[in-house]
């Protein structure tokens, strides 16, 4: 899987909705959904910075490395 975005967990912990987060970090709902559902190919430092600021957390709380499972 590689890098996983744990946005849904943090949002749940902070009790923040997708709409509210999108509004506060000033990105579209569509883009935030891409990020939340691990469909994004990259994340800008500026986006990460705003997320950390609004969610009051560290980048490591949002991003997680998951080792690819061996198919054998």
């Amino acid at each position, binding site marked *: 899987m590689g890098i996983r975005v744990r946005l849904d967990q943090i949002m749940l912990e902070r009790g923040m909705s997708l709409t509210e987060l999108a509004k506060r970090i000033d990105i579209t709902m569509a*883009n935030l959904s*891409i*990020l939340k559902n691990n469909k*994004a190919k*990259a994340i800008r430092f500026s986006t990460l910075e705003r997320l950390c600021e609004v969610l009051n957390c560290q980048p490591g709380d949002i991003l997680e490395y998951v080792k690819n499972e061996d198919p054998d």
Partner: protein
Amino acid sequence: MRYLGKKSVSQVVSKWLSILWYGSMAGAALILIGVFVANRNLEGFGLTIRGGLKIRVSPEYITPGFDYKKYFGLLLLSVLFMIPLYMAAIYQLRGLFREFVRNRPFNKENARRIRIVGWCVMASWLVDNVLGAALSWTIARNVQVPGVELSTNLFPRLTGLFLGLIIMVLSEVFAEAARIKEEQDLTI
């Protein structure tokens, strides 16, 4: 002048391609009927040389016993090969320009369309050269006009191949652009 989107050059070309598409279907049917019917009982035959020079050969200059069937068979074969290639290329170009009008030039589908056009161009180059050489050779062997020397140059013209290769390279450029665009779209 705008080249992409609505009210642009792409939209004009897209409309022309649509007219060409429907016109070609009618034209293809007419050509097939023409090759089958009109030339069947022809006395002598007509040739159009690249560049538009038309020559009509009277029966007295044709070798007695010349098998017209072979000539028309080759002609029919080249028409049967060329029409689908031509139609396929126009079909793909229509799709391509529709996407240009929608302002979506860089996607995987467009790269695939351009690649198909490239294959069509190269295949038609091959058919044109192989069957063209066979036709020229048949005519040169069976037509004797006093004072005129007919010979065939079997060295292939490379323009079509060169154009096809350029289009194939362009398709790879579009595929790469589509990949970059996708990555950019998915960078949040």
